[in-house]
């Protein structure tokens, strides 16, 4: 609402103050404090928006690596899954992840507060694990929501070109409502991994990416490869997608969005830590792209475009966990190794599993490396700033942090894999995971969505001049005539 003169912000707050204790508190703060809260909130919301925009990045990346007959379903899926996450996170996910837990159970799952939340300006909720940040509950809610939606997007990025649309819906509900919140609680919500073992996962290599990739792995085992992916000899064939410019636009959008993903995870702007995180993030992306480029060139004597992009994503995914804990030089090493991992990971995984984007490597393997790398490179000073865990092996000579990180890797993978495998198995036995062979060959766009994603490329319209027969001559002229008054015929 445009602030009409009679409605001063201060005034309105005062009015509301009587009703909302927290707002009263806010009004009682000095202006300085409220400016501090506001700048923190603007920062967290801005970062969250960038992460939201990463959905467009995933959409373009997946579109680019799909064949033309399957592009409409990709974008529909992105929008539907973003929508389902929005609602599930509001309903139950946020509460299970961050709502106050109690006693021993609190190490496993939250839920003391935050189901179906309402918000008023500046209102808070009982979110013990997030009390360190002064931003209002709404900002915390939003920022955590976009991470959940990203994790879900990672699951689906691997299952392109053969999955029934209903599967996306059926799996998204429990994933956004329970699986992701569970892991999120373990690491960030006061659960046994984060608050307990001091696992370092600054922005979610484990919580977001490894969770997504583990679920994807379970799904892929049950789903099987696209028709034509493996030859009679069992060797993989490439199915190179249709549009590298859009795919790499996706990479650039992801790179841009990651500038919110990691730096926003400071959950505040006042301590200025976010600027450091940003630089570290950017350097890892750069190192990942260059090292993947080099490795693939050495291996196949060509500068594979998609793999350069994969390298950047792997660098970003790997640095996600350590981004708040490491120095730029370490970021370069972490990113460069992620770039190597992603190439060999794609080579290896492709032999057995049909993962069109290489997401299992870029998000799965690279993130395992990222999580572990905290145990090696974490700067003890930054660990203190962030208040989680301790310095890494190379600083302290101590293996403890590395051990904690390994526990996180194993427990996240095992938990998510088992839960997801069970869910996908049930879906497979009931409604099925795959479209029919005929639908797969014709393309999902026409078989599931009733129209190609590129209608003119598939619809017979020679000359590009689609004119319906019924509309020829007579009819057209009549109709045009009725649009009278036009001086130019």
């Amino acid at each position: 609402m445009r602030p009409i003169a009679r409605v001063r912000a201060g005034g309105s707050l005062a009015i509301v103050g009587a009703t909302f204790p927290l707002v009263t508190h806010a009004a009682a703060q000095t202006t300085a404090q409220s400016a501090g809260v506001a700048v923190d909130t603007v920062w967290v919301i801005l970062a969250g928006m960038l992460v939201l925009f990463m959905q467009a990045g995933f959409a373009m990346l997946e579109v680019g690596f799909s064949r033309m007959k399957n592009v409409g379903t990709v974008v529909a899926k992105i929008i539907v899954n973003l929508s389902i996450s929005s609602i599930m996170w509001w309903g139950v996910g946020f509460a299970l992840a961050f709502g106050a837990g109690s006693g021993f159970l609190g190490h496993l799952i939250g839920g003391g507060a935050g189901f179906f939340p309402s918000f008023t300006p500046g209102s808070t909720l009982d979110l013990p694990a997030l009390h360190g940040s002064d931003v209002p509950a709404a900002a915390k809610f939003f920022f955590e929501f976009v991470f959940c939606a990203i994790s879900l997007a990672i699951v689906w990025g691997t299952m392109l070109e053969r999955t029934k649309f209903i599967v996306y819906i059926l799996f998204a509900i429990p994933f956004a409502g329970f699986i992701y919140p569970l892991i999120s609680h373990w690491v960030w919500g006061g659960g046994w991994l984060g608050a307990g073992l001091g696992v370092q996962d600054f922005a979610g290599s484990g919580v977001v990416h490894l969770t997504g990739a583990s679920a994807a792995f379970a799904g892929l085992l049950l789903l099987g490869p696209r028709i034509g992916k493996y030859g009679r000899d069992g060797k993989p064939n490439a199915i190179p997608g249709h549009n590298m410019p859009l795919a790499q636009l996706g990479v650039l959008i992801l790179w841009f969005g990651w500038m919110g993903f990691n730096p926003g995870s400071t959950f505040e702007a006042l301590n200025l830590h976010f600027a450091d995180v940003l630089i570290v993030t950017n350097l890892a992306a750069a190192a990942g792209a260059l090292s993947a480029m080099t490795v693939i060139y050495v291996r196949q004597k060509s500068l594979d475009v998609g793999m350069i992009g994969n390298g950047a994503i792997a660098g970003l995914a790997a640095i996600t966990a350590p981004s708040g804990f490491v120095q730029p030089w370490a970021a370069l090493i972490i990113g460069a190794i992620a770039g190597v991992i992603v190439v060999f990971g794609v080579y290896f995984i492709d032999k057995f599993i049909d993962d069109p984007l290489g997401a299992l490597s870029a998000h799965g393997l690279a993130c395992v490396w990222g999580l572990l790398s905290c145990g090696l490179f974490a700067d003890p000073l930054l660990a203190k700033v962030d208040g989680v865990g301790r310095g890494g092996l190379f600083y302290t000579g101590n293996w403890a942090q590395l051990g904690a990180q390994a526990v996180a890797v194993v427990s996240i993978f095992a938990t998510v894999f088992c839960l997801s495998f069970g869910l996908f198995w049930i879906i497979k036995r009931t409604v099925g995971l795959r479209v029919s062979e005929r639908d797969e060959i014709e393309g999902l766009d026409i078989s599931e969505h009733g129209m190609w994603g590129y209608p003119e490329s598939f619809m017979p319209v020679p000359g590009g001049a689609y004119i319906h027969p019924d509309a020829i001559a007579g009819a057209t002229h009549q109709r045009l005539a009725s649009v009278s008054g036009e001086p130019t015929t």
Partner: protein
Amino acid sequence: MRKVEAIIRPDRLQAVQDALDTLGTSGLTITEVLGCGRQRGYTEMYRGTRVHISLQRKVKVEAVVVDSRVEAVVEAIAAAARTGEIGDGKIFILPVEEAVRIRTGERGDLTIRHLDAEHWGH
């Protein structure tokens, strides 16, 4: 049997289809082609430089028909495709020795016999 092969303007395709529909033909095959003939290319100005467009977009319509229908089909196509301006295109008639319907293995004229003049194509 003859193959009637017409090179026409893309925006006359629908009219040609309609005309052959009315006549009742067994089938058509359509290809997007580029052509040049009397209708010479043209030059567009684009950012201050010329773009020579030497080939025109055309559509090739092929219909294999029994000998007795060749004339009718040619006439129908010519009438429907004509605008009177250069670039209307050509019709060529080629001999065809045999036709096979893949689905049934049938051969000869019956594979391309005319259907009743009902509305195909839409």
